[in-house]
């Protein structure tokens, strides 16, 4: 399927200065064909700037990117044949209506006029925007404007679909609908880049996540890989029928995945990696030693823990 060994997008030292300010700092990254790539980072990390360069809307200051092997600097026209983007801020001219905007967009993307009418109706209906199709852009609510913006990509169905914070401002049921539609698009063969600062969105939707901070990639991998890379990121608590002996604690500490063990009366709290592998062994050992397990509690690290680990700051402010 892929013409380029499974790589859809390749960033090579991709850099953007705004004046003297370095917004995107020599990014090197490969995004694979037909994956949902989550681009996770806080405000001002450089997500949008990077995406705008990939779509050839912004010119890189240094470096370049290849979209299915085509250099964005050398052949931007061919790149744009393959790329569609839903911008972070909806780009709608105030006098136009959702129907006009999407119909024109469909025509530009190659639909005949009758096909365009049909696809626009389908997509507007799916986005719950058919009723509002004749309102002007300035009469739409923020979430409605965002829906129109995203609908463009679902009409275009490009080989590389880029969504810049697609569910910001969208209500909960809308969010789920959009996530479903993004997955469908991937399953149909598109590669997806999804910029977000929502942990949950990045976690449930992405095949791989790139954490971006201050214009650099801080970490890269599947959500699970990223969580597993944090030393002692998992927390396991076991309540026993009596306080554990020193011998038991020593044996737990001997497990290679264990980072730290704390004894609290009848409770043992362990900071460890890959809890799902370690837990059966520890339970077996405890039962062998004659303990009765009364309660097991474990917590996986979140992407926020990953973020904290790699950047030293938290993405989500503690309550």
């Amino acid at each position: 399927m892929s013409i380029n060994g499974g790589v859809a997008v390749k960033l090579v030292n991709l850099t953007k200065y705004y004046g003297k300010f370095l917004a995107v700092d020599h990014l090197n990254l490969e995004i694979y064909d037909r994956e949902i790539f989550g681009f996770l980072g806080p405000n001002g990390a450089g997500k949008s700037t990077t995406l705008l360069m990939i779509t050839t809307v912004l010119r890189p200051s240094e470096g370049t990117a290849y979209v299915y092997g085509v250099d964005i600097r050398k052949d931007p026209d061919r790149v744009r044949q393959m790329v569609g983007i839903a911008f972070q801020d909806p780009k709608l001219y105030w006098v136009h209506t959702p129907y006009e905007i999407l119909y024109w967009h469909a025509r530009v993307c190659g639909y005949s006029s009758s096909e365009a009418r049909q696809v626009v109706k389908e997509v507007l209906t799916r986005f719950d925007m058919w009723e509002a199709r004749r309102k002007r852009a300035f009469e739409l609510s923020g979430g409605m404007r965002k829906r129109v913006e995203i609908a463009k990509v679902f009409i275009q169905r490009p080989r590389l679909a880029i969504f810049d914070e697609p569910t910001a401002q969208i209500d909960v049921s809308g969010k789920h609908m959009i996530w479903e539609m993004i997955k469908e698009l991937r399953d149909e063969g598109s590669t997806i880049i999804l910029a977000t600062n929502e942990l949950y969105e990045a976690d449930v939707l992405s095949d791989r996540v790139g954490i971006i901070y201050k214009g650099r990639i801080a970490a890269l991998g599947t959500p699970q890989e990223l969580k597993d890379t944090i030393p002692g990121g998992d927390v396991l608590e076991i309540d026993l029928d009596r306080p554990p002996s020193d011998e038991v604690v020593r044996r737990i500490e001997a497990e290679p995945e264990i980072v730290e063990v704390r004894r609290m009366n009848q409770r043992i709290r362990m900071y460890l990696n890959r809890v799902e592998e370690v837990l059966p062994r520890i339970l077996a050992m405890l039962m062998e030693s004659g303990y009765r397990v009364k309660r097991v509690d474990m917590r996986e690290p979140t992407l926020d823990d990953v973020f904290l680990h790699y950047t030293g700051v938290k993405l989500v402010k503690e309550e």
Partner: protein
Amino acid sequence: MILRHLLLVVERDFRLLIEYRLFLIIRWLWFGIQIAIFGLAISQLVVLEGYINYYAAGIYVATLYSAAMFVAVDISEEAEHGVVDYLLSLPINRNILIIGRAIGGGLRSLAATAPPLVITLLYVGVRNPYTLISAVAGLALLSFGVAGLAITIVSLLKSGAKTDILLGALDAFVIRLSTVFYPREFMPEAYSAAAAVNPLTHASEVFRWALGLPYEGDPIFSMVMLLAFMVSMTSIGVYLYEKRMEGGGWTS
């Protein structure tokens, strides 16, 4: 695909016409007022027979020029809504995008000034169908060229306020340094030299020739000048756009 994209871009810009109903009516009234008051008043002063007709033809050309320049205002307003970024992200060749916008803006300006044009034609009277077609072609070349110039200016300035100021300044110069209001023989030498190369001069003279009014120079030469103006404006627009244009960075 190229032609299809060109037509879509042209159509998109042309359709904006409908949004300007009120604005258009004001513009048409202004045209009428200019002729009624200034035209008549100045006729008393200028020693040129039938000056009111001469003036009407000129003021139409000036109206067309302002309408085509107004394309810049649209584009900068669109840009403030981020629409320029959207257009730049589309699978449309950038040259086609600019040429399409110049043609669309040009056609829209012609359509927007159609009533004053028709009134002028009816009131002054056109010589024959051949001159009519030539006049409309000449005016269209001016309109496309000015729209191309407007797009270039706004893309380079990337600011609504700066665009407004520059358009105001240009308006004052470009119209005065042309034969819109009076023939070159009445101008100081420096003015006259500038007027000789001003596309507004050539459009005015072609138009006057078609209307059977006193005109200067050779209508065919003027047509060539207008064609050269349009081609060079769109080429410069395309070239600068490629060099300088990118999304973002627009200020009000």
